């Protein structure tokens, strides 16, 4: 059964230095509050996995939490580059960052396979792409029925999954609604999971086939209102597109980034 913890306690207890951590949310419901708590607790040497490492990973990488990044699209959507990610990859600041990159289709299938408890995902992918030349985790197998050559990638089965969701009921069942991304998959694929929620309610108000994660499939739940901002939570608040644009200026420069981090992360406590 999921345990209700403060965000501080959840991160402290369930994320260790050196862990493989997936913080997911496909544009929607990105767990920013949890990312900031990880920065505050100065977790180190994390292998970070995420299809679309955007601002939250840019911040964590810039803060020195990561040693490796596995991803399929790393940018500030609609704005441009992730300057902290680039600084780490290109200049090793604040530390060297190893990267391993996939396509979305491969990562989506790898999450599906991870949730399904399988060691590999099979997809019709990477045909003609140079990505297999630079990622030795991409292999090819032959279908035993048709002889077709198909791509295979290792499934994703992280130590910890971190997601944000709209709400939990008092038994610890969680509703995710709207762009549900790979939230269900990453929680089921992970050894441990932390779910931050906008609120804890008596009744989830879920429709019959809603994306509900049962309490017994979750390790810890922490209430974190606006925990996805500047991304958004459908039904609660909109995406702060202005901040996404503003981030480009903040992150471009190490000093402005560090000042932002000090004022907006380190000097704030967990929600």
């Amino acid at each position: 059964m999921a345990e209700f913890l403060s965000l501080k306690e959840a991160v402290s207890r369930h994320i260790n230095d050196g862990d493989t951590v997936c913080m997911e949310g496909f544009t929607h419901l990105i767990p920013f509050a949890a990312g900031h708590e990880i920065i505050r607790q100065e977790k180190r040497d994390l292998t970070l996995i995420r299809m679309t490492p955007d601002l939250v990973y840019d911040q964590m990488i810039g803060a020195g939490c990561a040693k490796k990044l596995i991803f399929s699209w790393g940018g500030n959507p609609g704005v441009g580059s992730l300057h902290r990610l680039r600084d780490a990859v290109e200049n090793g600041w604040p530390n060297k960052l190893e990267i391993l990159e996939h396509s979305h289709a491969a990562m989506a299938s790898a999450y599906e396979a991870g949730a399904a408890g399988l060691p590999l995902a099979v997809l019709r992918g990477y045909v003609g792409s140079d990505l297999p030349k630079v990622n030795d985790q991409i292999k090819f197998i032959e279908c035993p029925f048709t002889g077709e050559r198909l791509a295979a990638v290792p499934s994703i089965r992280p130590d910890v999954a971190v997601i944000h969701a709209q709400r939990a009921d008092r038994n610890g069942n969680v509703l995710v609604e709207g762009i549900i991304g790979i939230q269900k998959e990453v929680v089921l694929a992970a050894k441990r999971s932390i779910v931050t929620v906008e609120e804890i309610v008596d009744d989830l108000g879920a429709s019959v086939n809603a994306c509900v994660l049962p309490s017994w499939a979750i390790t810890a739940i922490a209430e974190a209102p606006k925990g996805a901002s500047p991304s958004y939570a459908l039904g609660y608040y909109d995406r702060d597109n202005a901040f996404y644009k503003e981030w480009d200026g903040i992150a471009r420069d190490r000093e402005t980034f560090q000042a932002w981090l000090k004022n907006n992360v380190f000097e704030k406590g967990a929600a």
Partner: protein
Amino acid sequence: MSLEYTSSEMMSVTAARALTNGMTCFVGIGLPSEAANLARLTHAPDVTLIYESGTLQTKPDVLPLSIGDGELCESALTTVSVPEMFRYWLQGGHVSVGFLGTAQIDRYANLNTTLIGDYREPKVRLPGGGGAPEIATSAKEVFITVKHSKRTFVKDVDFVTTVGFGRDGKARDNVPNIGNGPTVVITDLCILKPDPETKELVVRSLHPNVTREDVIAATGWDIRFAEDLATTPEPGARELEVLRDLKARTHSHHSGPTMPANNEAHRD
């Protein structure tokens, strides 16, 4: 009649015209999204737009800044998980057109969105593949729209993130269950299509007031022109009006004052 329009508007209107009712289009963010929604708001109201965030048959009123803006979900027929989107809807063969942008494109319509320079020592690190590698192979055909410049139109891309027709134009030959690949590239200068035999991109139509020299100067290889080189029809008044309204709505939506709650929150 002589309407005033920019080369960007010419590009978007031309790209939009490539889409027709009945197509199911997997939309990349940026220029493709602008063109696809312009098509939907003008001549192709029944075009089906899909974004990789899982939003099926979406009808945003403003252009999304990201592929997962709330607008996409709220206006969609339904929203599925990302694994389902890539496995069932794209790989399952339900997408007729993949509409992509790119950072680099070469003469065989290979796309590079990974990096400029060498992989281990990049001059510029770009965002990466995202959905494009498999959109380009699973969709029945691919439309590409990108601004024309020598930096973008290179003889050989530094890295094949997403295959057009490969380094030799033959990458799709004898590959089972693969789409037809890029069938048209729309820039702010012209329309290019692959040669049916060699798959090399050939200019098929110049936009009004664009010369062959303009295209040659903006292309990093010895670009060929079709024998029956056409002139692209100009944008219509309604297309321009709808496009400008869409961009104005989008601009005001994405840069308008954010809600106080959000301003607070992102500093938590």
